[in-house]
């Protein structure tokens, strides 16, 4: 187990190093850092002095090492546009994105598992066929269309829910949450649903396929032959075996939820890191772009690690280390 964790950590470090290289290339070679920092009227000699002082004339390797050293300390420079340390900027936007991502992952997981189990247990029902048909539309419609549709229906036509922003937030000092106010919660509903739909259909179809597969196994037949109740078989024996791949996929999807939040955040003007990234791309705010890249990669890597560890918790064969 320990060896496994160490190997995983090493792999993660390697992935991060590679992403750091890409981030560094963007940081260093997209546009000219100096001209982004100073005005057009700055003289060439002054620019050269700045270049020297910032170490931009050092060998690339040295610059990369410095970039990584800074990154390890959470230093990604100053945003060209907002003149604020990038790390501070991202951290201030992070709570909004995390709350949105977790709310939609929760919706996707709960609704996805429930619908997946239902359609697997009643494969021939009308309701199941209906859900499967709708889910097909769900995966093929682009997120922004769904978001705009929801805004049109619930915000514009019915006027039930707000269509943009986070509502009132409460500052806990280190975290600004929208979960404690009514307007915050109401503002969360539409973007969270929009962001969840794709994952929801994915999880539902996965649960359904896995569950159908598990229901055909010998141990389910043996459980039936022992006279266990339908409930014990469906929601104990079958669901537990279905959950291994579902946990993996859901966990891995959490990374993409945060990454895909870009579109949803833009549609709903949600003040998270996604919309920060979109504006920084528009303004060629390179330090923010590079930091965002590193940040998303870090989240993916961390989630991967957690999912691998969850595997151990769920599957005794792996825990013993002598599975087949």
């Amino acid at each position, binding site marked *: 187990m320990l060896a496994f964790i160490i190997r995983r950590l090493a792999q993660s470090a390697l992935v991060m190093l590679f992403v750091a290289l890409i981030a560094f290339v963007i940081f260093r070679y997209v546009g000219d850092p100096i001209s982004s920092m100073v005005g057009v009227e700055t003289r060439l000699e002054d620019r050269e002095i700045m270049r020297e002082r910032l170490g931009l004339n050092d060998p690339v390797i040295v610059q990369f090492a410095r970039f990584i050293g800074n990154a390890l300390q959470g230093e990604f420079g100053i945003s060209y546009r907002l003149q604020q340390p990038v790390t501070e900027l991202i951290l201030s936007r992070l709570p909004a994105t995390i709350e949105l991502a977790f709310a939609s992952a929760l919706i996707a997981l709960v609704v996805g598992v429930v619908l997946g189990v239902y359609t697997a247990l009643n494969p021939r029902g009308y309701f199941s066929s209906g859900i499967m048909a709708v889910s097909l539309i769900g995966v093929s419609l682009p997120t922004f269309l769904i978001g705009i549709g929801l805004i049109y229906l619930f915000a514009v036509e019915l006027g039930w829910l707000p269509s943009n922003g986070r509502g009132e937030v409460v500052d806990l000092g280190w975290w600004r949450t929208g979960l404690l106010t009514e307007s915050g919660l109401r503002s969360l509903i539409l973007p969270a649903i929009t962001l969840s739909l794709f994952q929801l259909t994915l999880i539902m179809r996965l649960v359904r396929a896995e569950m159908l597969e598990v229901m055909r*196994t010998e*141990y389910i*037949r043996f459980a039936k*032959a*022992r*006279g266990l109740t339908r409930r014990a078989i469906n929601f104990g024996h079958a669901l*537990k075996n279905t959950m291994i791949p579902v946990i993996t996929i859901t966990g891995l999807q959490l990374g993409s939820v945060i990454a895909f939040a870009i579109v949803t955040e833009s549609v709903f003007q949600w003040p998270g890191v996604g919309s920060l990234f979109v504006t920084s791309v528009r303004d060629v705010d390179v330090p923010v772009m590079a930091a965002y890249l590193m940040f998303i990669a870090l989240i993916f890597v961390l989630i991967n690690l957690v999912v691998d560890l969850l595997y151990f918790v769920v599957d*005794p064969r792996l825990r013993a280390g002598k599975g087949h």
Partner: protein
Amino acid sequence: MTEPLLSVRGLTVEFPTRHGILTAVEDISFDIMPGEVLGMVGESGAGKSMTGNAIIGLIEAPGRIARGEVWLNGQRIDSLPPEAMRAIRGRRIGMIFQDPLTSLNPLYRISDQLIETIRTHLPLSQDAARKRAIGLLDDVGIPDAARRIDDYPHQFSGGMRQRVVIALALCAEPDLVIADEPTTALDVSVQAQIIDVMKELCAERGAAILLVTHDMGVIAETADRVAVMYAGRLAEVGPVRDVILAARHPYTAGLMGAIPRLGENLVRLNQIPGAMPRLSAIPPGCPFNPRCPRVMDHCRSHRPALSPIEPARKVACWLYPEVTEA
């Protein structure tokens, strides 16, 4: 005369397919007396598993029992509502499957699987059920049962897992155990032990066994009576000794030719040439006629019914004048 424990009457199992209805089991009838071991033999695909599944009510859709009746202790069980049938499974009929590596849920401890099954059928507390489970594991010959009970299935060898499966089937003291090729998937060295454990425990508890296998050697050593299946039908039923020493159906005689180590007074027959027909291509008349060394014209057009030819012996073959048409 005692009543039979299990009575199967004219059981027919069909599978509707695109190319018409396939009959996997056709019109089979047999009884099992309390405490009796009935062996059921036949080539792969003869319909042995299907018969067992039909008795316990686990034919998978679209398959279905098209005709016939199954009686257990004087109660008709083939037409029971699902919940009533579920209560019989595990409680009055236990089942042992072929492959112990896949029969146990890999994510559940042995203790959980045993206790869950015990408490489904018997009004016991968690602690009492656990005690009973440990006792059962002891009985089936798992060393250090009190400690091993909390292990997961993958921590046991194949033979040990099959012992666990037997413990699970016997959890609630069923009157009948259906063992569907319980040793086919096991290493030869442990096959005899597993059969012995199963037979001994059932005998102690007075449980009858329907022992499905294609191994005539196992039947010879274990069963009281034997039923021979061919292409979804019963070819012959009788006391083991009689059937082995003097097979009446040419198919049975051919099968006997395939058993190793038999009594010297037996004439060894050659293996039967050809293969069992597919369900969609069962010939008219006697289903065995294309392979039968003693086939007559009559056999090609008339189907023999399983008919009594001696006390306690039935055969479906036109060689015997007592046999009637199906």
